């Protein structure tokens, strides 16, 4: 089954590098005012993002060379470690609270978000599970249900932080994997129904989630509280127009848009680079999806297919949700934009995932 090693997918790699370079520029532009204000250094965030990117490249370059069957072998262990960290982060004293959620573990610059790792860990494990038990996948009790149980356990732990955005991305990615692996459509409808009920339950249990949803429907009904972020985001995107205000000329980054370098970096991009620039970035993500799914289709075995699918799905779901939020299409969730948003653990992890994806492309077969 093994073929000779091929070069990595150049298109995929090129579009990724494009995104990373644009990301560095945008992190600088979006954060220079804040950096100067809070750290007395306009390059503060850029410097750090540069370090993260370098670390990400190292991780990517390393994993690119690790044949992906390695992950199949160790998938259970990966999952167990991820679960351990997910439990640890919930313990006060170990997990740190930032932005209202106990999501961080570690110290200062070396802190990580275990939920981020679980996203990838679950993909690694689920791809293995589904590849191995693919014939049972149409059987609910013996195939689908055990998988769902593991997914739900991880989701529940993430929701205890709570971090709805990451949980949703993880669960969504898993559903894509189940779907691609051949789960019955009938089961999906049933699951979708149950998922919807659960989602409604989660929203009902925390009123701020409901407010986020209503504020997304009409942000101007509460412009200073729940609608604030969406409005400020639209104030950046709208005036951008076709060509944008020019690099560095965003106005909304001057403290109007909270955290412009993380969740709302796409708004600053749309403001400074206009529809042309923002649309270009969307297309780059499109290329990434296309090349990633091509890798899934040309992977030499089921595990490679599913692993590639999962990584693509994870990246693209985040893109979809983040840009949807920024343009007022979805309620505010707190999802970063892959490769562009400032943030160490998220960026390093995503680039590591792409490293795995790139390795899969090296084993591609020309399917007849």
């Amino acid at each position, binding site marked *: 089954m093994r073929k000779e090693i091929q070069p990595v997918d150049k298109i995929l790699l090129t579009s990724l590098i494009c995104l990373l370079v644009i990301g560095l520029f945008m992190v600088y532009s979006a954060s220079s005012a804040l950096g100067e204000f809070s750290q007395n250094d306009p390059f503060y965030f850029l410097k750090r993002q540069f370090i993260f990117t370098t670390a990400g490249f190292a991780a990517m370059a390393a994993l690119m060379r690790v044949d992906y069957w390695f992950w199949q072998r160790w998938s259970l262990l990966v999952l167990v470690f991820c679960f351990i960290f997910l439990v640890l982060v919930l313990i006060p004293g170990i997990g740190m609270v930032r932005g209202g959620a106990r999501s961080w573990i570690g110290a200062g610059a070396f802190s990580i978000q275990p939920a981020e790792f679980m996203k990838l860990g679950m993909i690694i494990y689920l791809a293995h599970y589904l590849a191995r038990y693919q014939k049972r996948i149409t059987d609910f009790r013996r195939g689908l249900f055990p998988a769902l149980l593991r997914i739900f356990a991880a989701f529940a732990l993430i929701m205890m932080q709570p971090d709805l955005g990451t949980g949703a991305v993880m669960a969504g990615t898993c559903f894509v994997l189940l779907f691609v692996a051949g789960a019955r459509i009938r089961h999906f409808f049933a699951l979708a129904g149950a998922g919807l009920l659960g989602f409604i339950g989660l929203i009902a249990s925390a009123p701020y989630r409901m407010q986020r949803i209503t504020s997304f429907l009409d942000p101007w009904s509460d412009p200073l509280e729940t609608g604030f972020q969406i409005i400020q985001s639209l104030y950046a995107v*709208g005036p951008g127009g076709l060509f944008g205000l020019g690099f560095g000329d965003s*106005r909304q980054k001057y403290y109007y848009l909270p955290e412009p370098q993380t969740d709302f970096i796409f708004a600053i991009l749309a403001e400074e680079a206009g529809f042309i620039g923002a649309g270009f970035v969307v297309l780059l993500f*499109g290329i990434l999806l296309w090349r990633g799914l091509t890798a899934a289709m040309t992977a030499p075995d089921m595990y490679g297919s599913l692993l590639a699918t999962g990584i693509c799905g994870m990246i693209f779901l985040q893109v979809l949700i983040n840009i949807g939020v920024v343009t007022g299409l979805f309620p505010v969730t707190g999802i970063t934009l892959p490769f562009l948003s400032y943030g160490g653990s998220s960026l390093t992890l995503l680039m590591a995932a792409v490293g795995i994806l790139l390795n899969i492309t090296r084993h591609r077969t020309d399917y007849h």
Partner: protein
Amino acid sequence: MRVSFVTVRKRLFFVLAVGAVAIVVLLLRLGFVQFSMGDWLSELARDSWSRDVPFEAERGEILDRNGEVLATNVSAPSVIAAPRQIEDPEQSAEQLADVLGAGEDKVYEWLTKNQSLVRLSPEGRKISKEKAKEVRDLEIEGIYIAEDNKRHYPKGKYLSHVLGFAGIDNQGLTGLEQYYDDKLKGEAGRVSFFSDAKGRKLEGMADEYEEPTPGEDLSLTIDAKVQTIIERELDIAEATYNPDGALAIAMDPDSGEILGMSSRPDFHPEEFRDIPAEVYNQNKPVWSQYEPGSTFKIITLAAALEEGKVDLENDHFNDPGYIEVSGTKLHCWKKGGHGEQTFLEVVQNSCNPGFVALGERLGKDTLFDYIENFGFGKKTGIDLQGEGTGILFDRENVGPLELATTAFGQGVSVTPLQQVTAVAAAVNGGYLYEPYLAKEWLEADSGTVIEANTPTMRQQVISEETSDEVRNALEHVVAKGTGRGAFVDGYRIGGKTGTAQKAVDGKYLENNHIVSFIGFAPANDPEIVVYTAIDNPKDTLQFGGIVAAPIVGNIISDSLSVMGVEKQQDQLEKERNWDDEVLVETPDVTGKSLKELHEAYYPFQIEKEGEGNVVIAQSPKAGEKIREGGTIRLYLDDKSNSSD
């Protein structure tokens, strides 16, 4: 394995297709926000970035009919601070406190407030131009001078009730300032600077200046010269009689244009804060309502003439001093009555029983129809707030007694302006006009007329012929009757006295009357109608003919003179009483020597000017009428010198 791999491929294609659709949706949404919503969002965003320093508009000026300025503005800028742009609040506070004369701590508090813009009020509000320049010269970053102005009334108390005044925000609060506030106020402009969310200036975005639009200038029907005369006469009346109140209205009877209007107590519009609200809120000529008294008889007279119920020259009436109506004796104001008179004399004497007779001849419905047609019981429609409607008897409750009292002006309540418009209609040929003050609207700087108001005629109430008869009768009142106080040599004045009792809690007050007179001139073609009422004049007989008539006479004669109306020769001779001053023609004494003058025993005081013994000029000139015992000024020169 193969079969399931096919399923996986199919599903992967499906996922790719969904992803492609998602990308298209994102692009469409992005385009929608950036293009379709773009302008709207840009505007909202601009609003959220910009901090406005207001530049108040100049209110329109108010002018008299000849362009004399009655209300204008003086520049009074305000200081506004943007605290987050101020680098050294302590030093800035020290400098500003010094210039503005405010406490340093207070200024420091302003400059450090957690607000994007702070008004330094009151010390920095509406300051003088010079102060503003001093502030500007400090060159403090973050301190802005907002253009503003305050209302200035150059003539002080003059026309105060009509003009009203504008408040601290240049908003019209009373009078014309309030009534026409929308047109006068203009639209404020602004200087906008763009700020980040922490209030500091955004680099790279220039300040924007939006020029304020000044209000339109209002040209009034008021004639400043007539108004000056009215103000003067009311001042004199106030000084002479110390009344509870006084008012006067002058109107052009041929259009309803108000030429002058004033009342006492008055106020200085720039000091309205120190004045009781009832003083500036009650514009008595349009607001107050009281029994008109005898001036109302003009309406009864006009109605009776129009209906052919009386022949003034030939019908006779005997007044024994009272008339009995439904068992009640209604007394004439003159004890013992006026005896046998023609109805013209009834009018001249303002004989109450005579007017009761006229009322009875007219009947309830006809008289009340006329009263309503003349505009009583409803607003005149003048362009001022707070106009009264007056109170008439409810027709169903009018019995013979109510009809009788109404006929001579008791038991009804009217506003002064209603009387003026009604009498104007009675003497102008019968046309009832809506009185008005706003003559023209002018563009602020060019003075181009934007809008000109024209007279509004409501209806013709009586015929031209009847109106002519009314004028004639009322001229007789002034020449021979109760209105002789208003007689002016050379101007044919017609008019009617009024002495109204004041009712408080349903009872008439003793020795407390509103005495009034309404006059017009020239009697053959009236150019002006003037009404004056003095409320409770002290130390005088409270009769309209004694107190109010001379005031109206003065106002009319001086007004006609400044309006350029020529004196006439063919006026009715004044009938004299024993206490009247006799007017005699001034003899021609020019050329006579002092010795000749002494021998002639002229009945005048003589004042000499210059040296010499021959009269070369005299004042008044020969032929002009002068009071017996009055003073003639003679200009002397030495004839022998000049003939040498």
